[in-house]
């Protein structure tokens, strides 16, 4: 290892140090001392990590640690996205976690450690590092999902998520093992080289099995149908600030991994994975939207909506590498902005204890609190995909990519689905806009917006508007990323000498 390698993982290093620092302070503080200020430490750490990621743009594109970790515009794009989400989620938690909680320190540390895993996941080009990164991010998320121990749903969500999640990770690991067996390496570029000669590659059945297993593992993480069943239950049981995080950041990381796997590792097997992803995209959109139509619980509805959005994003993968990666990256950013925003509003409105979980409970929100009601409607309008919001250009680029890749029907099914989706988003939006019923005995308290939450909401609104009105900058960044994530780039990372294909055991 040379010292320059550390710069390749600078954001991860910063986040790790922040997390360790938080744990140390947490342990050394007296028990009665409020832990809220630790959240600010975490937020500062996330901000510094964003700057560090942007600084990494000045590094030459390449790998460190013996070809296991890569720095490129692609990884920077996702680093900034993930750290941005984490920052907003931290700000959100600062004001909404109960004051008397003794576990606040753990909460912030876990969020930051989770961010380390997610960031590493996007920059790893060695499948074992990928696996480790995925585990770091997943384990933090499992714990966070069960953070509300006093309710029945919290532990239920955590256990469900943990069991199904480990199962899916096992699939991924099995896939890694098979590809190692088939090609003798776990380095992404080397695998791509070994597969360059498809279909005249030895052990093709093993490789195909490996592709399928890895896709199952990753699609579980992005909650695409038919691997989505955990999503509604986990979202319902986990605290809303956690859902704001886990519905966006780990998914963005998993999508980055998916892009790397299909476009960088298996580009030659396009004829195999492309139809598979087509089916998964259509299933996700349709199942997600149809199920969301029938939900009464806001968080369950948004859970199904996130499944549908995974489908819209996967539609972009029907396109060629440069179009597909750019569109998918842009969609991940647009989706993150509006989804974090809407979960932030839901968190503030229904509170940490979620006294108001149902759509009907949101009735008259705009009369009670014009700001929150207006923001709720704003984010819903963006999720519907109305122009001048990020949701529009997200869908626009994704479906355009699908069309340019020849998947006309996928685009048409996607457009029909977004018409269907409008129905349930509008149901919530218009319920929130409706005049409240006659004042009841105990009117719902008017939600309070603190400074940290206000900053979080401001970030989300600004990001959604920027992506909808001037998408150029973000799109350029995602395109630069797409150019660095092309199959078989420079030979420096993958000398063909290492191509020692071993027979399967």
């Amino acid at each position, binding site marked *: 290892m040379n010292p320059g390698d550390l710069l390749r993982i600078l954001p991860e290093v910063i986040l790790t140090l922040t997390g360790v620092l938080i744990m140390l302070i947490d342990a050394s503080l007296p028990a009665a001392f409020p832990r809220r200020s630790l959240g600010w430490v975490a937020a500062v750490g996330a901000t510094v990590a964003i700057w560090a990621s942007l600084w990494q743009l000045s590094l030459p594109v390449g790998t460190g640690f013996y070809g296991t970790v890569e720095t490129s515009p692609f990884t920077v794009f996702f680093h900034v996205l993930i750290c941005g989400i984490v920052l907003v989620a931290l700000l959100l938690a600062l004001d909404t976690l109960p004051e008397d909680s003794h576990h606040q320190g753990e909460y912030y540390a876990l969020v930051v450690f989770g961010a380390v895993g997610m960031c590493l996941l996007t920059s790893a080009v060695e499948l074992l590092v990928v696996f480790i990164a995925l585990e770091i991010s997943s384990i933090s998320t499992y714990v966070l999902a069960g953070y509300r121990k006093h309710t029945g749903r919290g532990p239920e969500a955590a256990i469900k998520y943990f069991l199904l999640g480990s199962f899916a990770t096992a699939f991924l690991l099995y896939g890694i093992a098979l590809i190692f067996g088939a090609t003798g390496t776990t380095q992404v570029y080397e695998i791509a080289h070994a597969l360059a000669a498809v279909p005249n590659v030895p052990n093709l059945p093993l490789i195909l099995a490996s592709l399928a297993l890895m896709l199952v593992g990753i699609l579980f993480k992005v909650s695409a149908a038919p691997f989505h069943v955990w999503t509604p239950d986990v979202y319902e049981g986990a605290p809303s600030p956690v859902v704001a995080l886990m519905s966006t950041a780990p998914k963005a990381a998993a999508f980055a991994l998916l892009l790397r796997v299909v476009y960088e590792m298996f580009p030659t097997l396009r004829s195999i994975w492309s139809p598979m992803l087509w089916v998964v995209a259509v299933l996700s959109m349709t199942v997600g939207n149809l199920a969301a139509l029938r939900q009464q619980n806001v968080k369950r509805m948004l859970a199904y909506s996130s499944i549908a959005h995974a489908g819209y994003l996967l539609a972009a993968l029907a396109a060629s590498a440069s*179009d597909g990666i750019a569109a998918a990256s842009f969609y991940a950013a647009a989706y993150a902005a509006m989804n974090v925003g809407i979960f932030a509003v839901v968190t503030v409105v229904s509170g940490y204890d979620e006294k108001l979980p149902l759509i009907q409970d949101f009735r008259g929100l*705009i009369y009670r609190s014009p700001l929150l009601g207006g923001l709720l409607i704003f984010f819903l309008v963006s999720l519907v995909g*109305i122009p001048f919001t990020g949701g529009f250009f997200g869908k626009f680029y994704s479906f*355009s*990519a699908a069309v340019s890749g020849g998947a006309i029907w996928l685009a048409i099914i996607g457009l029909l689905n977004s018409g269907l989706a409008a129905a349930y988003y509008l149901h919530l939006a*218009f319920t929130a806009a*409706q*005049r409240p019923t006659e004042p009841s005995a105990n009117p719902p308290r008017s939600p309070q917006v603190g400074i940290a939450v206000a900053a979080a909401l401001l970030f989300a609104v600004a990001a959604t508007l920027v992506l909808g009105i001037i998408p150029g900058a973000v799109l*350029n960044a995602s395109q630069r990323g797409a150019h660095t994530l092309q199959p078989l780039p420079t030979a420096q990372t993958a000398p063909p000498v290492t191509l020692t294909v071993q027979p399967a055991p």
Partner: protein
Amino acid sequence: MNDSILTLILLAPLAGAVLIALVLAILPNRGKLPAWIALLTSLVTFGLTLHLPAHFAHGQPGFQFEFNLPWIDIPPISYHVGVDGLSLWLVVLVALLAPAGIVASWNSINERRELFYLLFLVQQTAMLGVFISLDLMLFYGFWELSLVPMAILIAMYGRKDGPKAATKFFLFTFIPSAPLLVAILWLYAKTGTFNFADLQYAIATGIVPAAPLFWVALAFLFAFAVKVPVFPLHGWLADTFNEAPVAMAMVVAGKLGLYAMLRFHVGLFPSQARHIAPILVALAVIGILYGACLALVQRDFWRFLAFAALSHLSLIVLGIYGLTFTGWDGAIYQILNHELIDAALFILFGALELRYLTSQIAAYGGLAARIPQTATLFVIASLAMIGLPMLNSFIGEFLILSSTFTGVSRGWAITATLGVILSAAYMLWLVQRLFYGPQSQLAASKPPADLRFGELAILWPFAVLMLVMGLAPSLWINTIENRTGPPAPPRQVQCCSFLTIPSQGPGSTTKEAQQ
């Protein structure tokens, strides 16, 4: 000034909306302040729009007050605005109806005024944007945006079940705009541009393959026909009129869809429009009679107004799809007339509902003696709506019907004229039921409260305008005839994939071609 005037017009209402939001943040108890800000903003906007007819160069082909700024690189969407004879008066009309809408809401909107006026002004921006956009994606953006404030306001202030009517309205317009978007993208894939004039040229010269154009044109037409609405697609209209706040209902139907038909269907796909015109003519005539017959039997005056509007809007559709120049003149002029008269009637109905708290026609009767000003203005508006000579509607209806008679088919023209007779029947019968005859219990039970100053200050100028537009139509028609001529010569027409940067900067050459 001529370059930036349209941008100023577009931004003025938005600035008012931001101002209201700021006031809301600073002052906790603001009473009618948002309404005053909105009124002032709308008057300023109206003043700005008057710049357009004052400086419009007659006889000059093409778009005027044009402004073109590249906005998004990929795909090459530009902020390209401009008006011609078709859109000029519509822009003025939108700005004129804004103060009318605010006056109509002055006393009827008492909760969350700031939100109401904020969304009202955003709606203004969206509608103005639809009329001045010369870039198809920009147009599409404003077209979709115009749905949102409208739907939210219907949900917020609905009389009985706001969310239901709002959802109906939103989905009715939102779902057809999905094929519209696909069609726009298809055109882009074939031509590499979203610019209206370039597309018009590309289609006219046959650069675009003709066979799929039929479906593309149909997608455009379908989206616009729902918004007008044309006969079988009018399902949302009555519920929306019934539930929407008066200021919103008076702008929801008609002009957006009709303008889009003229500009982006007939204007962009002339030969496809010629093929489908006979069907549209038939539907329009059916709509005229169907709307008129249903208006005769309505018990609620909002639903009455919805079907009356359906009948009158169908007449304009007939003028458009007669595909004669006279018919188009008449159609555009009639859009102005219809919106003006409709707005007056909306204000009057709104005033009645505010004072007597019901929209059931049967509850009224014999009001003329108690509120004479209301009755007088109502009679003037009704006569204008019927198409009495010397009032504005007469000119428009005459142009449309005579052009249909000579240019399309005598049979359809005669059948459509039946609608005019029916229109006289339902309007006059309504006047009789509301204002004359024995005084109803309701009319006697309330203290007589005639129109307030604000309502009079809007309605009398409207009445005078109806008379002037009936006496001197050439003031308007001269400008209206100054529509865009034949397609302009091509600029860059290239094909490129989505998401890849075109080889040359988009929109860079647009300005020269205009000069």
